[in-house]
Protein backbone atom coordinates (compact mmCIF):
# COMPACT_ATOMS: atom_id res chain seq x y z
CA UNK A 1 0.00 0.00 0.00
CA UNK A 2 1.32 3.44 -0.90
CA UNK A 3 1.16 6.13 1.72
CA UNK A 4 -2.39 7.31 2.16
CA UNK A 5 -2.54 11.07 2.37
CA UNK A 6 -5.06 12.23 4.92
CA UNK A 7 -5.32 15.94 5.68
CA UNK A 8 -8.44 15.86 7.80
CA UNK A 9 -9.69 13.35 10.34
CA UNK A 10 -13.17 13.76 11.75
CA UNK A 11 -13.57 12.00 15.06
CA UNK A 12 -16.83 11.13 16.76
CA UNK A 13 -16.81 12.47 20.30
CA UNK A 14 -17.95 9.09 21.62
CA UNK A 15 -14.80 7.29 20.47
CA UNK A 16 -12.22 10.03 20.75
CA UNK A 17 -10.49 8.24 23.63
CA UNK A 18 -10.84 4.74 22.18
CA UNK A 19 -7.43 3.06 22.00
CA UNK A 20 -7.99 2.22 18.34
CA UNK A 21 -8.80 5.85 17.58
CA UNK A 22 -5.57 6.90 19.24
CA UNK A 23 -3.61 4.30 17.34
CA UNK A 24 -5.06 5.41 13.99
CA UNK A 25 -4.50 9.07 14.77
CA UNK A 26 -0.88 8.38 15.59
CA UNK A 27 -0.40 7.26 11.98
CA UNK A 28 -1.37 10.65 10.59
CA UNK A 29 0.64 13.08 12.63
CA UNK A 30 0.08 16.06 10.36
CA UNK A 31 -3.67 15.64 9.90
CA UNK A 32 -6.09 18.14 11.38
CA UNK A 33 -8.50 16.60 13.88
CA UNK A 34 -12.08 17.80 13.94
CA UNK A 35 -14.45 16.55 16.59
CA UNK A 36 -17.98 15.66 15.47
CA UNK A 37 -21.08 14.23 17.17
CA UNK A 38 -22.07 11.61 14.58
CA UNK A 39 -20.34 10.62 11.35
CA UNK A 40 -23.52 11.32 9.41
CA UNK A 41 -23.03 15.05 10.06
CA UNK A 42 -20.19 14.94 7.56
CA UNK A 43 -20.77 11.76 5.57
CA UNK A 44 -24.45 11.98 4.78
CA UNK A 45 -24.82 15.67 3.96
CA UNK A 46 -26.55 16.54 0.73
CA UNK A 47 -24.84 18.44 -2.05
CA UNK A 48 -21.45 16.81 -1.69
CA UNK A 49 -19.34 16.39 -4.79
CA UNK A 50 -18.09 12.80 -4.77
CA UNK A 51 -15.65 13.39 -7.62
CA UNK A 52 -13.90 16.35 -5.97
CA UNK A 53 -13.81 14.58 -2.60
CA UNK A 54 -12.34 11.46 -4.17
CA UNK A 55 -9.21 13.37 -5.11
CA UNK A 56 -8.39 13.88 -1.45
CA UNK A 57 -10.75 12.13 0.94
CA UNK A 58 -10.90 12.79 4.64
CA UNK A 59 -10.97 10.02 7.24
CA UNK A 60 -13.91 9.72 9.61
CA UNK A 61 -13.49 7.66 12.77
CA UNK A 62 -16.82 6.50 14.07
CA UNK A 63 -18.74 4.11 16.26
CA UNK A 64 -21.11 1.73 14.52
CA UNK A 65 -24.35 1.21 16.39
CA UNK A 66 -25.99 -1.58 14.45
CA UNK A 67 -25.96 -3.60 11.26
CA UNK A 68 -22.57 -5.13 12.01
CA UNK A 69 -23.20 -8.28 10.01
CA UNK A 70 -25.72 -8.47 7.20
CA UNK A 71 -26.97 -11.21 4.89
CA UNK A 72 -25.08 -11.03 1.59
CA UNK A 73 -27.18 -10.04 -1.42
CA UNK A 74 -28.76 -12.90 -3.32
CA UNK A 75 -26.42 -14.32 -5.91
CA UNK A 76 -23.34 -13.44 -3.88
CA UNK A 77 -21.61 -16.51 -2.62
CA UNK A 78 -19.24 -19.40 -3.21
CA UNK A 79 -21.26 -22.45 -2.41
CA UNK A 80 -22.32 -22.07 1.22
CA UNK A 81 -25.99 -22.20 2.11
CA UNK A 82 -25.81 -18.92 4.00
CA UNK A 83 -23.68 -15.89 3.25
CA UNK A 84 -23.06 -12.84 5.40
CA UNK A 85 -20.92 -9.77 5.03
CA UNK A 86 -19.50 -7.16 7.32
CA UNK A 87 -17.72 -3.88 6.64
CA UNK A 88 -15.59 -2.14 9.20
CA UNK A 89 -15.22 0.66 6.69
CA UNK A 90 -17.26 2.58 4.12
CA UNK A 91 -15.55 3.55 0.88
CA UNK A 92 -12.25 2.57 -0.56
CA UNK A 93 -8.83 4.06 -1.18
CA UNK A 94 -8.99 2.74 -4.72
CA UNK A 95 -11.00 4.40 -7.45
CA UNK A 96 -12.30 1.72 -9.78
CA UNK A 97 -14.61 3.07 -12.38
CA UNK A 98 -17.05 0.15 -12.32
CA UNK A 99 -17.33 0.07 -8.52
CA UNK A 100 -20.78 0.45 -7.01
CA UNK A 101 -19.31 2.50 -4.15
CA UNK A 102 -19.19 5.49 -6.50
CA UNK A 103 -22.94 5.57 -6.54
CA UNK A 104 -23.54 4.22 -3.07
CA UNK A 105 -22.72 7.15 -0.80
CA UNK A 106 -22.89 10.87 -1.33
CA UNK A 107 -19.43 11.19 0.18
CA UNK A 108 -16.08 9.79 -0.90
CA UNK A 109 -14.60 10.19 2.59
CA UNK A 110 -13.51 7.02 4.36
CA UNK A 111 -15.50 6.00 7.44
CA UNK A 112 -13.72 3.58 9.76
CA UNK A 113 -15.70 2.08 12.62
CA UNK A 114 -13.38 1.50 15.54
CA UNK A 115 -15.61 -0.72 17.69
CA UNK A 116 -14.33 -3.97 16.14
CA UNK A 117 -15.41 -5.95 19.20
CA UNK A 118 -19.06 -5.37 18.31
CA UNK A 119 -18.41 -7.01 14.96
CA UNK A 120 -16.87 -9.97 16.82
CA UNK A 121 -19.93 -10.37 19.03
CA UNK A 122 -22.35 -10.22 16.14
CA UNK A 123 -20.33 -12.70 14.07
CA UNK A 124 -20.23 -15.11 17.00
CA UNK A 125 -23.97 -14.80 17.50
CA UNK A 126 -24.59 -15.68 13.86
CA UNK A 127 -22.22 -18.63 14.01
CA UNK A 128 -24.06 -19.91 17.07
CA UNK A 129 -27.46 -19.41 15.45
CA UNK A 130 -26.36 -21.26 12.33
CA UNK A 131 -24.83 -24.22 14.05
CA UNK A 132 -24.58 -27.10 11.58
CA UNK A 133 -25.15 -24.86 8.57
CA UNK A 134 -22.40 -24.13 6.09
CA UNK A 135 -21.89 -20.38 6.16
CA UNK A 136 -19.43 -17.98 4.56
CA UNK A 137 -18.63 -14.51 5.81
CA UNK A 138 -17.34 -11.85 3.45
CA UNK A 139 -15.17 -9.10 4.77
CA UNK A 140 -15.06 -5.88 2.83
CA UNK A 141 -18.24 -5.46 0.87
CA UNK A 142 -18.45 -1.69 1.35
CA UNK A 143 -14.68 -1.33 1.15
CA UNK A 144 -11.58 -3.32 0.23
CA UNK A 145 -10.76 -5.84 2.98
CA UNK A 146 -7.07 -5.11 3.15
CA UNK A 147 -6.33 -1.85 1.37
CA UNK A 148 -6.23 0.23 4.54
CA UNK A 149 -5.03 -2.57 6.81
CA UNK A 150 -1.88 -0.65 7.77
CA UNK A 151 -4.14 1.97 9.28
CA UNK A 152 -7.08 0.02 10.67
CA UNK A 153 -5.62 -3.37 11.57
CA UNK A 154 -9.06 -4.89 11.13
CA UNK A 155 -7.95 -8.10 9.40
CA UNK A 156 -5.33 -8.67 12.06
CA UNK A 157 -8.03 -8.22 14.69
CA UNK A 158 -10.62 -10.51 13.14
CA UNK A 159 -8.28 -13.36 12.13
CA UNK A 160 -8.16 -15.05 15.59
CA UNK A 161 -11.96 -15.19 15.74
CA UNK A 162 -12.17 -17.13 12.49
CA UNK A 163 -9.20 -19.29 13.49
CA UNK A 164 -11.29 -20.34 16.44
CA UNK A 165 -14.35 -21.01 14.26
CA UNK A 166 -12.92 -23.22 11.57
CA UNK A 167 -16.44 -24.50 10.80
CA UNK A 168 -17.25 -21.28 8.93
CA UNK A 169 -15.49 -19.76 5.93
CA UNK A 170 -14.25 -16.22 5.78
CA UNK A 171 -13.36 -14.46 2.56
CA UNK A 172 -11.19 -11.37 2.46
CA UNK A 173 -11.82 -9.80 -0.91
CA UNK A 174 -9.19 -7.37 -2.05
CA UNK A 175 -7.00 -5.80 -4.69
CA UNK A 176 -4.35 -4.99 -2.12
CA UNK A 177 -0.92 -6.52 -1.94
CA UNK A 178 -0.84 -5.67 1.75
CA UNK A 179 -0.70 -9.29 2.94
CA UNK A 180 1.07 -8.82 6.27
CA UNK A 181 -1.80 -10.08 8.40
CA UNK A 182 -1.45 -13.47 6.70
CA UNK A 183 2.28 -13.77 6.32
CA UNK A 184 3.05 -14.22 9.99
CA UNK A 185 0.45 -16.89 10.85
CA UNK A 186 -0.20 -20.48 9.97
CA UNK A 187 -2.53 -20.81 6.98
CA UNK A 188 -6.12 -21.64 7.90
CA UNK A 189 -8.29 -23.94 5.80
CA UNK A 190 -11.39 -21.81 6.30
CA UNK A 191 -9.77 -18.58 5.06
CA UNK A 192 -10.08 -17.46 1.46
CA UNK A 193 -8.02 -14.55 0.27
CA UNK A 194 -9.82 -13.50 -2.84
CA UNK A 195 -8.45 -11.21 -5.51
CA UNK A 196 -10.47 -9.17 -7.98
CA UNK A 197 -8.94 -9.54 -11.41
CA UNK A 198 -9.39 -8.35 -14.96
CA UNK A 199 -7.07 -8.19 -17.95
CA UNK A 200 -4.16 -5.87 -17.34
CA UNK A 201 -4.98 -3.64 -20.33
CA UNK A 202 -8.49 -3.03 -18.99
CA UNK A 203 -7.34 -2.73 -15.39
CA UNK A 204 -4.90 0.02 -16.36
CA UNK A 205 -7.81 2.06 -17.57
CA UNK A 206 -10.41 1.22 -14.91
CA UNK A 207 -8.60 0.30 -11.69
CA UNK A 208 -7.29 3.64 -10.53
CA UNK A 209 -4.85 3.77 -7.62
CA UNK A 210 -4.77 -0.03 -7.29
CA UNK A 211 -1.78 -2.39 -7.44
CA UNK A 212 -1.30 -3.70 -10.98
CA UNK A 213 -2.65 -7.09 -12.00
CA UNK A 214 0.85 -8.49 -12.05
CA UNK A 215 1.47 -7.33 -8.48
CA UNK A 216 -1.81 -8.90 -7.41
CA UNK A 217 -0.84 -12.16 -9.07
CA UNK A 218 2.53 -12.04 -7.31
CA UNK A 219 0.82 -11.46 -3.98
CA UNK A 220 -1.54 -14.38 -4.59
CA UNK A 221 1.36 -16.55 -5.60
CA UNK A 222 3.22 -15.68 -2.41
CA UNK A 223 0.17 -16.40 -0.27
CA UNK A 224 -0.37 -19.70 -2.08
CA UNK A 225 3.24 -20.67 -1.52
CA UNK A 226 2.67 -20.19 2.18
CA UNK A 227 -0.35 -22.45 2.06
CA UNK A 228 -3.26 -20.00 1.93
CA UNK A 229 -6.36 -20.72 -0.13
CA UNK A 230 -6.89 -18.25 -2.95
CA UNK A 231 -10.13 -17.01 -4.48
CA UNK A 232 -10.11 -15.69 -8.02
CA UNK A 233 -12.80 -13.12 -8.66
CA UNK A 234 -13.22 -12.15 -12.30
CA UNK A 235 -15.80 -9.64 -11.31
CA UNK A 236 -16.93 -7.67 -13.20
CA UNK A 237 -16.28 -9.13 -16.62
CA UNK A 238 -15.50 -6.24 -18.91
CA UNK A 239 -16.25 -6.28 -22.59
CA UNK A 240 -14.13 -4.67 -25.29
CA UNK A 241 -12.09 -5.27 -28.38
CA UNK A 242 -10.18 -8.57 -28.22
CA UNK A 243 -11.76 -9.45 -24.89
CA UNK A 244 -11.36 -13.17 -25.56
CA UNK A 245 -7.59 -12.87 -26.06
CA UNK A 246 -7.28 -10.60 -23.05
CA UNK A 247 -9.14 -12.96 -20.70
CA UNK A 248 -7.41 -16.00 -22.14
CA UNK A 249 -4.05 -14.39 -21.44
CA UNK A 250 -5.10 -13.42 -17.93
CA UNK A 251 -6.50 -16.82 -16.99
CA UNK A 252 -3.43 -18.49 -18.43
CA UNK A 253 -1.00 -16.36 -16.44
CA UNK A 254 -3.03 -16.72 -13.24
CA UNK A 255 -3.12 -20.50 -13.41
CA UNK A 256 0.55 -20.64 -14.32
CA UNK A 257 1.37 -18.59 -11.24
CA UNK A 258 -0.87 -20.27 -8.69
CA UNK A 259 -0.93 -24.02 -8.11
CA UNK A 260 -4.43 -25.37 -8.69
CA UNK A 261 -4.50 -27.02 -5.26
CA UNK A 262 -4.19 -23.53 -3.73
CA UNK A 263 -7.30 -22.30 -5.49
CA UNK A 264 -10.38 -22.37 -3.35
CA UNK A 265 -12.84 -21.07 -5.92
CA UNK A 266 -13.26 -18.96 -9.00
CA UNK A 267 -16.19 -16.67 -9.62
CA UNK A 268 -17.35 -14.64 -12.57
CA UNK A 269 -19.62 -11.64 -12.24
CA UNK A 270 -21.26 -9.60 -14.96
CA UNK A 271 -21.06 -5.81 -14.98
CA UNK A 272 -24.38 -4.62 -13.62
CA UNK A 273 -25.64 -1.35 -12.15
CA UNK A 274 -29.08 -0.55 -10.80
CA UNK A 275 -30.52 2.17 -13.06
CA UNK A 276 -30.21 5.02 -10.57
CA UNK A 277 -26.71 4.02 -9.56
CA UNK A 278 -25.62 4.03 -13.18
CA UNK A 279 -27.15 7.46 -13.63
CA UNK A 280 -25.24 8.79 -10.62
CA UNK A 281 -21.93 7.27 -11.68
CA UNK A 282 -22.34 8.37 -15.28
CA UNK A 283 -23.01 11.91 -14.07
CA UNK A 284 -19.72 11.80 -12.18
CA UNK A 285 -17.65 10.44 -15.06
CA UNK A 286 -19.47 11.01 -18.36
CA UNK A 287 -16.25 10.72 -20.38
CA UNK A 288 -15.40 7.32 -18.97
CA UNK A 289 -14.62 4.78 -21.75
CA UNK A 290 -16.39 2.04 -19.76
CA UNK A 291 -19.71 3.76 -20.41
CA UNK A 292 -19.11 4.00 -24.14
CA UNK A 293 -19.42 0.22 -24.31
CA UNK A 294 -22.60 -1.62 -25.29
CA UNK A 295 -24.44 -1.14 -22.01
CA UNK A 296 -28.18 -0.98 -22.07
CA UNK A 297 -31.05 -0.78 -19.62
CA UNK A 298 -33.24 -3.77 -18.98
CA UNK A 299 -35.73 -4.12 -16.09
CA UNK A 300 -34.09 -1.39 -14.02
CA UNK A 301 -30.58 -2.74 -14.51
CA UNK A 302 -27.87 -1.29 -16.75
CA UNK A 303 -25.63 -4.05 -18.10
CA UNK A 304 -24.23 -5.61 -21.23
CA UNK A 305 -26.98 -7.45 -23.08
CA UNK A 306 -27.67 -11.11 -22.23
CA UNK A 307 -25.82 -12.38 -25.25
CA UNK A 308 -22.60 -10.62 -24.26
CA UNK A 309 -22.95 -11.58 -20.58
CA UNK A 310 -23.56 -15.21 -21.40
CA UNK A 311 -20.82 -15.38 -23.98
CA UNK A 312 -18.25 -13.83 -21.66
CA UNK A 313 -19.19 -16.01 -18.70
CA UNK A 314 -19.29 -19.17 -20.77
CA UNK A 315 -15.95 -18.42 -22.42
CA UNK A 316 -14.17 -17.70 -19.14
CA UNK A 317 -15.80 -20.60 -17.32
CA UNK A 318 -14.76 -23.00 -20.07
CA UNK A 319 -11.17 -21.76 -19.94
CA UNK A 320 -11.10 -22.03 -16.15
CA UNK A 321 -12.59 -25.51 -16.19
CA UNK A 322 -9.43 -26.69 -17.91
CA UNK A 323 -7.55 -25.98 -14.73
CA UNK A 324 -9.93 -26.65 -11.86
CA UNK A 325 -12.96 -28.67 -10.95
CA UNK A 326 -16.25 -27.17 -12.14
CA UNK A 327 -17.64 -27.39 -8.62
CA UNK A 328 -15.18 -24.68 -7.68
CA UNK A 329 -16.54 -22.25 -10.29
CA UNK A 330 -19.32 -19.85 -9.39
CA UNK A 331 -21.32 -17.15 -11.07
CA UNK A 332 -21.73 -14.04 -8.96
CA UNK A 333 -24.90 -12.16 -9.75
CA UNK A 334 -25.05 -9.63 -6.93
Amino acid sequence: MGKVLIETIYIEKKIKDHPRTKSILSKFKKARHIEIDRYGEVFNKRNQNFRIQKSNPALILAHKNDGFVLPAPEGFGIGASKNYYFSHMYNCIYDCRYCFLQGMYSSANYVVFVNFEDFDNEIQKIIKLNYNTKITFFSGYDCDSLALENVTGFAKHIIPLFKKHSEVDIEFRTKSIQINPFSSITPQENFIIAYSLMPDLISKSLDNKTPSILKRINAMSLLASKGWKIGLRFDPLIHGKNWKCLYEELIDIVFKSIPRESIHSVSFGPLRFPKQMFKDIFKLYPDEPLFSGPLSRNKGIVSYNNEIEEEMTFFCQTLTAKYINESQIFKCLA
Partner: protein
Amino acid sequence: MIKEIFKENDFSVRWVIALKEEAEIIITQFKMSLLSQTSVFPIFKNFDGSHWLILSGIGRHNAAAATLYLYEKSNAPRWTSWINIGIAGCGKGNYGDLCLVDKIINNSNSEKTYPDTMKRSILTRMELLTTDFPITDYNSKELIDMEGSAFYDMASKIASRELIGLFKVISDGPSNDIKKLNKSNISDLIKSNISNINTVISYYELLSLREKKIINKPELFFEISNQWHFTVSQKHQLDSLVRRINTFGIKKDIKCLLKDCKNSKSVISVLNKQIESHEVEWGRF
Protein backbone atom coordinates in the same frame (compact mmCIF):
# COMPACT_ATOMS: atom_id res chain seq x y z
CA MET B 1 -25.03 47.39 -20.73
CA ILE B 2 -21.95 45.76 -22.28
CA LYS B 3 -22.86 42.56 -24.07
CA GLU B 4 -21.62 39.54 -22.14
CA ILE B 5 -18.73 37.71 -23.76
CA PHE B 6 -18.27 34.29 -22.23
CA LYS B 7 -15.16 32.40 -23.15
CA GLU B 8 -15.41 28.69 -23.86
CA ASN B 9 -13.64 27.71 -20.68
CA ASP B 10 -14.94 30.29 -18.24
CA PHE B 11 -14.99 29.40 -14.62
CA SER B 12 -17.46 31.03 -12.31
CA VAL B 13 -16.73 32.60 -8.91
CA ARG B 14 -19.12 34.45 -6.61
CA TRP B 15 -17.90 36.46 -3.62
CA VAL B 16 -20.03 37.34 -0.62
CA ILE B 17 -18.33 39.96 1.54
CA ALA B 18 -19.78 41.92 4.42
CA LEU B 19 -17.92 45.23 4.26
CA LYS B 20 -16.80 47.51 1.46
CA GLU B 21 -13.39 47.84 3.15
CA GLU B 22 -12.94 44.07 3.03
CA ALA B 23 -13.96 43.92 -0.62
CA GLU B 24 -12.01 46.89 -2.01
CA ILE B 25 -8.80 45.11 -2.89
CA ILE B 26 -10.68 42.15 -4.39
CA ILE B 27 -12.81 44.43 -6.54
CA THR B 28 -9.62 46.10 -7.77
CA GLN B 29 -7.66 42.90 -8.18
CA PHE B 30 -10.31 41.22 -10.31
CA LYS B 31 -11.21 44.43 -12.14
CA MET B 32 -14.84 44.41 -11.07
CA SER B 33 -17.21 47.32 -11.43
CA LEU B 34 -20.51 48.22 -9.80
CA LEU B 35 -23.41 46.76 -11.71
CA SER B 36 -26.21 49.01 -10.52
CA GLN B 37 -26.68 51.78 -7.99
CA THR B 38 -30.19 50.70 -7.17
CA SER B 39 -29.99 47.00 -6.35
CA VAL B 40 -30.91 45.72 -2.88
CA PHE B 41 -27.25 44.88 -2.23
CA PRO B 42 -24.36 46.43 -4.19
CA ILE B 43 -23.16 43.94 -6.79
CA PHE B 44 -19.88 44.11 -8.72
CA LYS B 45 -18.71 42.01 -11.62
CA ASN B 46 -15.76 41.78 -13.91
CA PHE B 47 -15.74 42.17 -17.69
CA ASP B 48 -16.30 38.55 -18.67
CA GLY B 49 -18.71 37.76 -15.84
CA SER B 50 -16.50 35.11 -14.30
CA HIS B 51 -16.23 36.99 -10.98
CA TRP B 52 -19.20 38.56 -9.23
CA LEU B 53 -19.12 40.11 -5.77
CA ILE B 54 -21.87 41.23 -3.42
CA LEU B 55 -21.59 43.45 -0.36
CA SER B 56 -23.88 41.82 2.15
CA GLY B 57 -23.49 44.11 5.15
CA ILE B 58 -23.05 42.77 8.66
CA GLY B 59 -24.95 39.85 10.19
CA ARG B 60 -26.36 36.44 9.41
CA HIS B 61 -29.60 37.58 7.84
CA ASN B 62 -27.80 39.90 5.47
CA ALA B 63 -25.28 37.22 4.52
CA ALA B 64 -27.97 34.64 3.72
CA ALA B 65 -30.12 37.10 1.79
CA ALA B 66 -27.16 38.49 -0.16
CA THR B 67 -25.95 35.01 -1.13
CA LEU B 68 -29.33 34.09 -2.52
CA TYR B 69 -29.70 37.50 -4.17
CA LEU B 70 -26.34 37.13 -5.92
CA TYR B 71 -27.22 33.61 -6.99
CA GLU B 72 -30.33 34.87 -8.71
CA LYS B 73 -29.01 38.13 -10.08
CA SER B 74 -25.86 36.58 -11.51
CA ASN B 75 -27.61 33.49 -12.80
CA ALA B 76 -24.86 31.47 -11.15
CA PRO B 77 -24.29 28.17 -12.94
CA ARG B 78 -23.90 24.83 -11.11
CA TRP B 79 -20.12 24.93 -11.43
CA THR B 80 -19.83 28.20 -9.48
CA SER B 81 -17.38 28.49 -6.60
CA TRP B 82 -18.72 30.51 -3.68
CA ILE B 83 -16.34 32.50 -1.51
CA ASN B 84 -16.83 34.33 1.74
CA ILE B 85 -13.92 36.37 2.99
CA GLY B 86 -13.67 38.86 5.80
CA ILE B 87 -12.11 39.79 9.08
CA ALA B 88 -12.68 37.79 12.27
CA GLY B 89 -11.82 37.90 15.92
CA CYS B 90 -9.69 35.08 17.21
CA GLY B 91 -8.65 33.65 20.55
CA LYS B 92 -5.47 32.21 19.11
CA GLY B 93 -3.45 32.63 15.94
CA ASN B 94 -1.63 35.69 14.70
CA TYR B 95 -3.03 39.09 13.91
CA GLY B 96 -3.29 39.46 10.13
CA ASP B 97 -3.15 35.76 9.28
CA LEU B 98 -5.50 34.41 6.61
CA CYS B 99 -7.21 31.22 7.86
CA LEU B 100 -9.33 28.57 6.21
CA VAL B 101 -12.57 27.62 7.96
CA ASP B 102 -13.30 23.89 8.34
CA LYS B 103 -15.92 23.91 11.07
CA ILE B 104 -18.66 26.41 11.75
CA ILE B 105 -20.77 26.72 14.88
CA ASN B 106 -23.85 28.85 14.73
CA ASN B 107 -23.93 30.48 18.15
CA SER B 108 -27.68 31.03 18.08
CA ASN B 109 -28.63 27.34 17.84
CA SER B 110 -25.27 25.54 18.36
CA GLU B 111 -25.65 23.86 14.97
CA LYS B 112 -22.38 22.68 13.46
CA THR B 113 -21.35 22.38 9.84
CA TYR B 114 -18.09 21.24 8.31
CA PRO B 115 -16.98 23.08 5.17
CA ASP B 116 -14.45 21.43 2.94
CA THR B 117 -11.21 23.35 2.51
CA MET B 118 -8.60 23.90 -0.15
CA LYS B 119 -6.33 20.86 -0.38
CA ARG B 120 -2.63 20.90 0.40
CA SER B 121 -2.79 24.47 1.63
CA ILE B 122 -0.20 25.90 3.99
CA LEU B 123 -2.78 28.23 5.51
CA THR B 124 -3.96 27.56 9.06
CA ARG B 125 -7.33 25.87 9.38
CA MET B 126 -9.68 26.93 12.16
CA GLU B 127 -13.13 26.60 13.61
CA LEU B 128 -15.48 29.56 13.18
CA LEU B 129 -18.14 30.71 15.62
CA THR B 130 -20.80 32.87 14.00
CA THR B 131 -22.60 35.13 16.46
CA ASP B 132 -25.33 37.72 16.22
CA PHE B 133 -23.44 40.18 18.39
CA PRO B 134 -19.76 41.09 18.73
CA ILE B 135 -17.89 38.90 21.20
CA THR B 136 -14.85 40.14 23.02
CA ASP B 137 -14.37 37.14 25.28
CA TYR B 138 -11.99 35.30 23.00
CA ASN B 139 -11.21 32.68 25.60
CA SER B 140 -10.93 29.19 24.11
CA LYS B 141 -12.45 30.33 20.82
CA GLU B 142 -10.89 30.17 17.41
CA LEU B 143 -12.39 32.46 14.76
CA ILE B 144 -15.44 34.60 15.49
CA ASP B 145 -17.54 36.39 12.86
CA MET B 146 -21.13 37.44 12.23
CA GLU B 147 -21.89 36.00 8.78
CA GLY B 148 -20.08 32.70 8.11
CA SER B 149 -22.70 30.15 9.16
CA ALA B 150 -25.51 31.86 7.26
CA PHE B 151 -23.39 32.21 4.13
CA TYR B 152 -22.44 28.53 4.26
CA ASP B 153 -25.96 27.32 4.97
CA MET B 154 -27.31 29.21 1.98
CA ALA B 155 -24.41 28.51 -0.37
CA SER B 156 -24.58 24.78 0.35
CA LYS B 157 -28.18 24.78 -0.84
CA ILE B 158 -27.19 26.13 -4.23
CA ALA B 159 -23.72 24.67 -4.78
CA SER B 160 -21.64 21.60 -4.02
CA ARG B 161 -20.03 21.90 -0.60
CA GLU B 162 -16.58 21.38 -2.13
CA LEU B 163 -17.07 24.54 -4.17
CA ILE B 164 -17.62 26.71 -1.10
CA GLY B 165 -14.77 28.39 0.72
CA LEU B 166 -14.68 30.57 3.83
CA PHE B 167 -11.57 32.58 4.64
CA LYS B 168 -11.01 34.85 7.58
CA VAL B 169 -8.25 37.32 8.36
CA ILE B 170 -7.56 37.63 12.09
CA SER B 171 -8.37 41.22 13.00
CA ASP B 172 -8.83 41.27 16.76
CA GLY B 173 -8.16 39.13 19.77
CA PRO B 174 -6.87 39.16 23.32
CA SER B 175 -3.97 41.41 22.36
CA ASN B 176 -5.64 43.38 19.55
CA ASP B 177 -8.58 45.39 20.79
CA ILE B 178 -11.64 45.27 18.51
CA LYS B 179 -12.19 48.97 19.26
CA LYS B 180 -9.02 49.80 17.37
CA LEU B 181 -10.50 48.43 14.14
CA ASN B 182 -11.26 51.10 11.56
CA LYS B 183 -11.91 51.26 7.82
CA SER B 184 -8.28 51.76 7.03
CA ASN B 185 -6.83 48.86 8.99
CA ILE B 186 -9.62 46.51 7.88
CA SER B 187 -8.72 47.30 4.30
CA ASP B 188 -5.01 46.86 5.05
CA LEU B 189 -5.58 43.46 6.67
CA ILE B 190 -7.15 42.08 3.50
CA LYS B 191 -4.63 43.84 1.24
CA SER B 192 -1.71 42.30 3.08
CA ASN B 193 -3.13 38.86 2.25
CA ILE B 194 -3.81 39.42 -1.40
CA SER B 195 -1.13 36.99 -2.53
CA ASN B 196 -2.60 34.18 -0.41
CA ILE B 197 -6.08 35.13 -1.56
CA ASN B 198 -4.97 34.82 -5.18
CA THR B 199 -3.58 31.35 -4.52
CA VAL B 200 -6.79 30.26 -2.86
CA ILE B 201 -8.92 31.73 -5.63
CA SER B 202 -6.88 30.01 -8.32
CA TYR B 203 -7.77 26.72 -6.64
CA TYR B 204 -11.49 27.53 -6.67
CA GLU B 205 -11.33 28.82 -10.26
CA LEU B 206 -9.78 25.55 -11.32
CA LEU B 207 -12.39 23.50 -9.46
CA SER B 208 -15.12 25.50 -11.13
CA LEU B 209 -13.53 25.09 -14.54
CA ARG B 210 -13.23 21.33 -14.13
CA GLU B 211 -16.82 21.06 -12.99
CA LYS B 212 -17.99 23.08 -15.93
CA LYS B 213 -16.20 20.79 -18.35
CA ILE B 214 -18.03 17.82 -16.88
CA ILE B 215 -21.45 19.38 -16.37
CA ASN B 216 -21.67 21.30 -19.65
CA LYS B 217 -23.34 19.47 -22.48
CA PRO B 218 -21.04 18.63 -25.39
CA GLU B 219 -21.08 20.88 -28.44
CA LEU B 220 -22.38 18.00 -30.55
CA PHE B 221 -25.48 17.82 -28.36
CA PHE B 222 -26.44 21.36 -29.32
CA GLU B 223 -25.65 20.81 -32.97
CA ILE B 224 -27.94 17.77 -33.07
CA SER B 225 -30.71 19.18 -30.90
CA ASN B 226 -30.85 22.29 -33.06
CA GLN B 227 -31.34 20.23 -36.18
CA TRP B 228 -34.25 18.04 -35.03
CA HIS B 229 -37.01 18.56 -32.50
CA PHE B 230 -36.46 16.59 -29.30
CA THR B 231 -38.84 16.22 -26.36
CA VAL B 232 -37.40 16.89 -22.88
CA SER B 233 -37.01 13.19 -22.20
CA GLN B 234 -35.38 12.64 -25.60
CA LYS B 235 -32.97 15.46 -24.84
CA HIS B 236 -31.81 13.62 -21.72
CA GLN B 237 -31.33 10.48 -23.79
CA LEU B 238 -29.51 12.43 -26.48
CA ASP B 239 -27.19 14.06 -23.92
CA SER B 240 -26.24 10.69 -22.48
CA LEU B 241 -25.77 9.05 -25.90
CA VAL B 242 -23.67 11.90 -27.25
CA ARG B 243 -21.42 11.87 -24.19
CA ARG B 244 -20.93 8.13 -24.52
CA ILE B 245 -20.28 8.28 -28.25
CA ASN B 246 -17.98 11.29 -27.86
CA THR B 247 -15.52 9.05 -26.03
CA PHE B 248 -14.84 6.98 -29.11
CA GLY B 249 -16.53 8.61 -32.07
CA ILE B 250 -15.29 11.34 -34.29
CA LYS B 251 -17.75 14.19 -34.49
CA LYS B 252 -17.63 14.34 -38.27
CA ASP B 253 -18.46 10.62 -38.55
CA ILE B 254 -21.39 10.92 -36.19
CA LYS B 255 -22.86 13.81 -38.13
CA CYS B 256 -22.44 11.83 -41.30
CA LEU B 257 -24.30 8.88 -39.77
CA LEU B 258 -27.20 11.13 -38.84
CA LYS B 259 -27.55 12.95 -42.12
CA ASP B 260 -30.45 10.83 -43.37
CA CYS B 261 -32.41 10.86 -40.15
CA LYS B 262 -35.94 12.14 -40.56
CA ASN B 263 -36.73 12.84 -36.92
CA SER B 264 -35.43 12.75 -33.36
CA LYS B 265 -36.53 9.15 -32.89
CA SER B 266 -34.39 7.96 -35.75
CA VAL B 267 -31.45 10.04 -34.46
CA ILE B 268 -31.69 8.29 -31.09
CA SER B 269 -32.05 4.93 -32.76
CA VAL B 270 -28.92 5.47 -34.90
CA LEU B 271 -26.89 6.60 -31.89
CA ASN B 272 -28.12 3.65 -29.83
CA LYS B 273 -27.07 1.26 -32.56
CA GLN B 274 -23.61 2.82 -32.58
CA ILE B 275 -23.26 2.19 -28.86
CA GLU B 276 -24.65 -1.33 -29.07
CA SER B 277 -22.08 -2.33 -31.66
CA HIS B 278 -19.16 -0.52 -30.07
CA GLU B 279 -16.23 -2.48 -28.74
CA VAL B 280 -14.09 -0.38 -26.40
CA GLU B 281 -10.45 -0.35 -27.44
CA TRP B 282 -8.91 -0.55 -23.99
CA GLY B 283 -5.36 0.08 -25.10
CA ARG B 284 -6.32 3.58 -26.23
CA PHE B 285 -7.04 4.92 -22.77
